[in-house]
């Protein structure tokens, strides 16, 4: 069998479990080189990269949170402005309505006072004309009364027929007089 073969061969070259000195030396040299490179160069670089990456990811998350917060704040601000704008608009509308109502009321009051003024002036004019008519009438009634009295005295007052004729004539005179000379201001 092969194992026997191998053992036989091994004996000719010495015990394979006992290392030669050069074997140990080269092994130690190789291991030392690998160890030093890993220890001094590779692992520090690896750890640094992992740390930087973790930091970057951490930073990214924090930045995202910050941006989110800013967006939230901006949204809140916007909504506040919107609400303010609505309130302002409502206020303006209310103000306009009030103002409109005020204007209408003013106009009404003005119209009333104008009407009152017109009425008053018309009344005072009427009053003045009435006064004038009264004055004229009074002076004319005096003359008429005197005139009538003289005519009545000129005629016989005992005769009823005659007296009636006189009054009739007087009245027709009055009528013709008023139609020939109309009342002033009529």
């Amino acid at each position, binding site marked *: *069998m*092969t194992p026997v*073969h*191998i053992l036989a*061969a*091994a004996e*000719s*070259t*010495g015990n*394979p*479990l*006992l*290392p*030669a*000195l*050069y*074997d*140990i*030396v*080269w*092994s*130690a040299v*190789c*291991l030392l*080189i*690998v*160890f030093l*490179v*890993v*220890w001094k*160069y*590779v*692992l520090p*670089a*690896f750890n*640094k*990269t992992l740390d*930087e*990456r973790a930091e*970057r990811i951490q930073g990214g998350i924090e930045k995202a949170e910050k941006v989110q917060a800013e967006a939230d704040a901006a949204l809140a601000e916007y909504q506040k402005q919107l609400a303010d704008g609505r309130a302002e608009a409502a206020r303006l509308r209310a103000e306009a309505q009030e103002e409109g109502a005020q204007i209408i009321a003013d106009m009404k009051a003005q119209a009333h006072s104008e009407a009152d003024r017109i009425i008053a002036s018309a009344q005072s004019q009427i009053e003045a004309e009435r006064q004038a008519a009264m004055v004229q009438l009074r002076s004319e009634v005096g003359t008429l009364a005197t005139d009538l009295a003289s005519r009545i005295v000129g005629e016989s007052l005992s005769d009823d027929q005659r007296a009636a004729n006189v009054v009739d004539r007087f009245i027709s005179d009055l009528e013709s007089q008023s139609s020939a000379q109309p009342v002033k201001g009529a």
Partner: protein
Amino acid sequence: MGTLNAANTMIQAAESGFHAPSMAEFFPAAFLFEGTPFEMNRVMLIRIIATVAVVVLLAVWARRMKLIPSRFQSAMELAMEFVTIGIAEDTMGKEKAKKFMPLIVAIFFGILFWNVTKLIPFLNMPGTGVIGLPIVLTLVVYVTYHWAGIAEKGLGRYLKDSLILPGVPPLMHILLIPIEFITKFVTQPFTLAIRLFANMMVGHLLLVLCFSATSFFLFDAANGFQFFSILTFAGGFFVFLLEMLVVVLQAYIFALLSCVYINAAISDDH
């Protein structure tokens, strides 16, 4: 198994043109500094080539490291995290693992590359297939875990924690203390070194056996025996696939057990 049948047939044919693999493979002739502590032969050269390869790979990766990784960097990070997290931190915990991380990472990637040379054409030889490297690796781990245990707890308490199992009847300690002593100071390092060495050596021998038998059956054997070359080649191919697994597995096991031993030495609970 095809390989076993093939091996039997092969032994019968060994007298003729067949060269069975032997341990001499692992001790080729020196070509530099012969007889000095720096004697250089093929296996030593292969170790150095693997060392250069792993150092260059790791250094290039470390040099080109960016925040946003390339595919190469991602793949290397995956491998590195397999070691740092999957092996070291999962065994020892994040805090304790930190101190030993360079050693564990160097052990894993070193062993992986020293192993894998056995599958690479023209190298075809594991750097860990000669006992010196497993012994040096084990020695480093051995010294590390005893040193770490003593540094953590002081010599007295470390020995007490290592050797005396809690909650055992006092009389049993007569039996258990020697067993624990042999386990911690002899068996653990011995098995750690031998497991790696034997796996790599035997895997290499099996590969050589299968492929040299294939070659023999195909070119040297009498007519009618050529058929066996298919079996031996299939066996060799199977072993090759198996070795791809073993190469990684042994690196993993060595690194993992190193962590387990260190953790056992520095932990309070035992």
